[in-house]
């Protein structure tokens, strides 16, 4: 077994220089960005080196090789050599002007082509391909999954831990409820790596540096890979970027109240509390997100796509049982809006038997048709099985839109399905709209009527991009998008009914499956099976649920930043405020936090709101000492009303809040609690 580690040359989104934004044009100056190796790819490399060395230590005949593989501009040579300095045995750099503008599927196709060539040339044998689960620039997590799909390599998603017993490699992987363990019975396979894997050391030896400096890299272009021009780069992409714009939204000045300065800000607290309580109890809807919610812009032209709007729903307790997740219901709401503007119907696809109360709930949430997928699924997180079933169903129903929750599962299943179907896929959308798109294909203008405009943050929330999916491989592929929970609004259709259909999925015998992709290779011999070991019983179970209340379900969220001062203050101020709000207002109140507060250990990751945490949409969001960088705001800016309590006048969140109390949390929160206890 040899190892291939995929490394990507990406913008350092944590260190975007001030002058990178062209504020006049609203564009990002890409040449101002610092470029680095994707940090999660560093962890993949560290894992690969550890596996290679462990295999070597087991002294099983020949030592495995570790080759890094990167697609990027010529400058990406730097990160290839860096990987060699850290211990890689060689590097392949895929660089060609024809590769530029590639979306995830065109990128995956190029990388898959290179892996095939590396195998064909004997550079690697039976490779275990490793890659960071996602990169911070696009944050889609799609490329490694689609590479596995195109190569027909078994996928081991979200590796958090590994062990080798005898000659057997096992991987602990994250899944929606804890962890599971997958055993690699035989390579090839592809594994994606999470931040729980140890990072590369920050230094190397001088000897390795010299080796890296003097190494001869393998550089391949499109011709070397034998790929058609139409299959790579922009030409080979199923999606097109319509526009890129700044994420700065309109302020909330219409009803903004700012208390500080001359006047004692604490005196304003009763007024603010009263306004928030009235807003909650009059059912005021969030009115800050109209710009990006689902809907349509008027269009006289006929629809380019045909078919229903479908949502792949998830359940709360297990894959096949339990209530429909809140995120799925939100997507049904979005799909219903889109379907109405397209003059079509909304379908909920859901694994497992649908109980009558579940059918009713799906109908109330906007579904007109419910399709239950019934199959003999392995009781483990093997996403290929689910993806195969969904692919078969989509082939039969031909929806024009397929929405998938951007959960751990959905972010793997959706790219697998998209790769199988040859469909365009946009991850983590924050806005979905139907509008015409005028494309220029071969210099000729083509009008694509009523296509799905998918808006998503990119570059760590520093830019927003609007994307459309054009015809994929076979003219019947749906437009696919994923969205995180909390982004869209669920609908409530009283007394609605939905029809129920059942789709029975027969697992094909191995040889029946073929992608139909012109680049597909012979079915690989790789095999990954669920381990017998019960990982969740062990001490390593990770906390994947918020401590008490699910933030998605909360009417009110109290969220803390570093400004709260200390972990003790979270217990002394924030938690009592949560209890006081629940008692006084009779609503569900959750406790969230900023990334900085999470990293300071104030609250667990599950409570983190923002780009790298949860997207929440409570009716009222109370920010205690949160400065509110854009990465935090994308996670909460669709809240109905935002109250910021902060003594830092420079905090960006203040200008995005409805109510601002310029005071320290230590001063303001006890007053708030007292007012609530007195019945405010």
């Amino acid at each position, binding site marked *: 077994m040899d190892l291939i580690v995929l490394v990507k040359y990406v913008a*350092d989104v944590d260190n975007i220089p001030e002058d990178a934004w062209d504020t006049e044009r609203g564009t990002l100056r890409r040449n101002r960005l*610092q470029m*680095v190796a994707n940090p999660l790819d560093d962890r993949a490399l560290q894992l690969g080196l550890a596996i290679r060395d462990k295999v070597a230590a087991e002294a099983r005949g020949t030592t495995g090789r570790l080759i890094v593989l990167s697609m990027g501009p*010529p*400058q*990406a*040579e*730097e990160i290839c*050599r*860096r990987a060699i*300095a850290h211990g890689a045995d060689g590097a392949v750099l895929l660089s060609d002007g024809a590769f530029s503008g590639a979306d995830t599927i065109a990128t995956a196709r190029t990388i898959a082509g290179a892996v095939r060539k590396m195998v064909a040339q004997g550079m690697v044998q039976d490779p275990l391909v490793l890659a960071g689960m996602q990169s911070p620039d696009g944050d889609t997590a799609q490329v490694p999954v689609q590479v596995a799909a195109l190569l027909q390599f078994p996928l081991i998603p979200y590796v958090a831990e590994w062990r080798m017993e005898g000659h057997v490699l096992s991987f602990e992987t994250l899944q929606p409820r804890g962890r599971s363990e997958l055993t690699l019975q035989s390579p090839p396979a592809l594994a994606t790596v999470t931040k729980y894997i140890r990072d590369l*050391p*920050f*230094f*190397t*030896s*001088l*000897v390795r*540096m*010299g*080796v*890296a*400096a*003097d190494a001869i890299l393998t550089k391949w272009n499109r011709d070397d890979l034998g790929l058609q021009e139409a299959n790579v780069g922009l030409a080979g992409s199923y999606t097109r970027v319509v526009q890129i714009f700044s994420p700065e939204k309109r302020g909330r000045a219409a009803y903004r109240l700012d208390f500080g300065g001359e006047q004692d800000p604490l005196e304003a607290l009763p007024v603010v509390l009263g306004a928030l309580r009235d807003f909650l109890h009059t059912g005021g809807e969030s009115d800050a997100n109209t710009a990006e919610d689902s809907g349509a812009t008027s269009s006289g032209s006929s629809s380019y796509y045909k078919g229903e709007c479908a949502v792949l729903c998830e359940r709360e307790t297990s894959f096949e049982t339990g209530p429909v997740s809140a995120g799925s219901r939100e997507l049904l709401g979005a799909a219903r809006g889109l379907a109405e503007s397209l003059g079509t119907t909304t379908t909920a696809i859901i694994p497992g038997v649908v109980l009558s109360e579940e059918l009713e709930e799906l109908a109330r949430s906007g579904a007109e048709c419910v399709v239950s997928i019934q199959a003999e699924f392995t009781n483990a997180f093997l996403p290929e099985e689910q993806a195969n079933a969904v692919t078969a169903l989509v082939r039969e129903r031909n929806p024009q839109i397929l929405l998938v929750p951007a959960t751990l599962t959905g972010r793997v299943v959706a790219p697998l399905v998209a790769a199988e179907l040859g469909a365009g896929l946009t991850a983590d959308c924050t806005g979905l709209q139907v509008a015409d798109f005028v494309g220029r294909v071969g210099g000729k203008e083509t009008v694509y009527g009523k296509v799905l405009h998918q808006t998503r943050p990119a570059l760590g929330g520093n830019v927003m991009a609007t994307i459309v999916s054009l015809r994929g491989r076979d003219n019947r592929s749906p437009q696919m998008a994923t969205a995180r929970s909390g982004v869209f609004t669920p609908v409530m259709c009283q007394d609605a009914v939905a029809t129920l259909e059942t789709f029975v999925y027969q697992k094909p015998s191995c040889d029946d499956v073929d992608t139909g992709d012109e680049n597909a290779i012979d079915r690989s011999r790789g095999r990954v099976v669920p381990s017998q070991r019960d990982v969740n019983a062990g001490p390593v179970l990770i906390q994947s649920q918020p401590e008490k209340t699910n933030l998605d379900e909360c009417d009110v969220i109290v969220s803390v930043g570093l400004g709260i001062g200390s972990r003790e203050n979270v217990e002394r101020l924030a938690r009592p405020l949560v209890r006081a709000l629940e008692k006084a207002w009779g609503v569900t109140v959750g406790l969230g936090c900023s990334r900085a507060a999470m990293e300071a250990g104030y609250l667990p990751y599950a409570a983190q709101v923002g780009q790298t945490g949860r997207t929440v949409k409570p009716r009222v969001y109370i920010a205690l000492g949160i400065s509110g960088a854009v990465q935090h705001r994308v996670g909460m800016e669709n809240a109905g009303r935002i109250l910021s309590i902060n003594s830092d006048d420079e905090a960006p969140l203040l200008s995005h809040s409805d109510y601002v109390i310029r005071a320290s949390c230590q001063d303001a929160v006890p007053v708030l609690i007292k007012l609530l206890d007195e019945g405010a």
Partner: protein
Amino acid sequence: MSNLKHVRSPGYGGDSPLPPSTDDPEKIRSYLSDESSAMSGSAERVFYPQHAGHISTVLRAAAREEKKVTVSAAGTSITGARVPLAGGWILSIERLRRIDLEENAEDITPSPPAGFVLVRYRDTSFFLNPETRQAIAPVGITLSEFKEALAPYNLVYPPDPTEMTAMLGGTIATNASGARSFHYEPTRRWVRGLRVVLPTGELVNIRRNECRARNGMFSIETDAGTTAVSLPRGYPVFRSKNAAGLFLADGMDLVDLFIGNEGLLGVVTTVHVDLVEVPRDVLTCVAFFRSIDDGLAFVDVLRHGDVDGVSKPLSLEYFDRRALAFIREAFPEIPPDAAGAVLFEFEYSRVVQHNPYPAGTVLAPWIALLEAHRAISTWNVTGRDISRVREFRHALPEAVNTYVRARVGKLGTDMAVPARHFRAMVEAYDEADTCGVKTVFFGHIGDCHLHLNFLPENRDELALARKKYLELARLAVRLGGTISAEHGVGKKTIEDEEGNTIPYLEVMLGADGLRAIHAFKKSLDPRFILNPGNMVPEGYC
């Protein structure tokens, strides 16, 4: 104070008015101490001059009003140099930020000298000649602003005393150095010329190589005429890196008189400096050694630079085993058996554009040298990976400061000795904790300049540490070194063996040396208006 508004300065600047000022105690308060917080002074008024004319007016007014004047830059000193112990006025250089204002004040056309262009950065401006790599800048610009403004030209001003919020003026007054001074030398080497307002209010434009001391005399051309000053006889000349006392030697350049004088002799308003190209690619290495001797022997080789293929490092720093233990938690990669670590950086050129590493042939002599000195392991980084090593460098001072904040503060040395006596000094540092106080030491080993920090637990230990401190200072002087290589002495005092409080500089120069400085200052500042108390306390002579 009201009559001050009508003061007009004769001579230079014609009738330059007084600069903006304030007597608001709140505003004044921020000028009364420095980063050491060891002492605090008082003042009646703060002046904010914007050009040399303003300074001249203030100094002449001070002479008439019999006020003392203490000059203040960014306040990053840790010696009390800017603390106004004598009261009176404060002259803050923070608004000396625009070279075009400076020129206008003198009724010179604001156009830059031939070959120079006017560079504006934020609210600052300076003249730059990118071809000859020279800049003429006002002293209120901070080092970080200067660095950012020069970055687009791929140029840098080499003195880098770590504290980048320091102003250019402060670094001139202390002859600042820092980690890279091993390669670049301290500030002095980089100064081509200065504009100085003397304590009398006269203005001098000095260019290097135009005025030297002859027969123990300087003849200084000012805008008001010629002033002659004699250098004291028998005043010592220092050959190691030094920031303690005045630099006085026959044959010396007049420019050097105004660098590192802690503000005793004049107020510098603009500096004409040399710049260098930003080092393109730098390799940073932290090498761990099993014994101090191995580390010192390795450093000796680099200091002499007599190994083929081994270029002179940009910096050469040391961390002793106690220092490593202090940050081991944050850096578990530190080998457990390391007695010390040497950090060095060197510049290299790329073979090919996108190849970030030096070729194997460039690295081979370094690898051989490290092996010959039995290095346990090395950390090597280039490019953007350097940030973690930067964290390593900053972790120690931060850990030390956190540690002492919860106790009774730290006591840090700043001594340096000639290379041939360095081993004796290191032995003394290594044994310093036998006095019963925890210590760590680290610093600029390339310049034989380590900082030993005492970390006392309580007042009793602090007293022990002070005693040891004096012993070490005496040793440094005996070995022909200095009691302060980069911080300066400012208004620092120390208790001698008999328990008398004496000026710190007296340990090195003796009472005679201090009297010589006092007498020399008098020749330029007959009324002792400017920065009284630095080096020589008021009333000492």
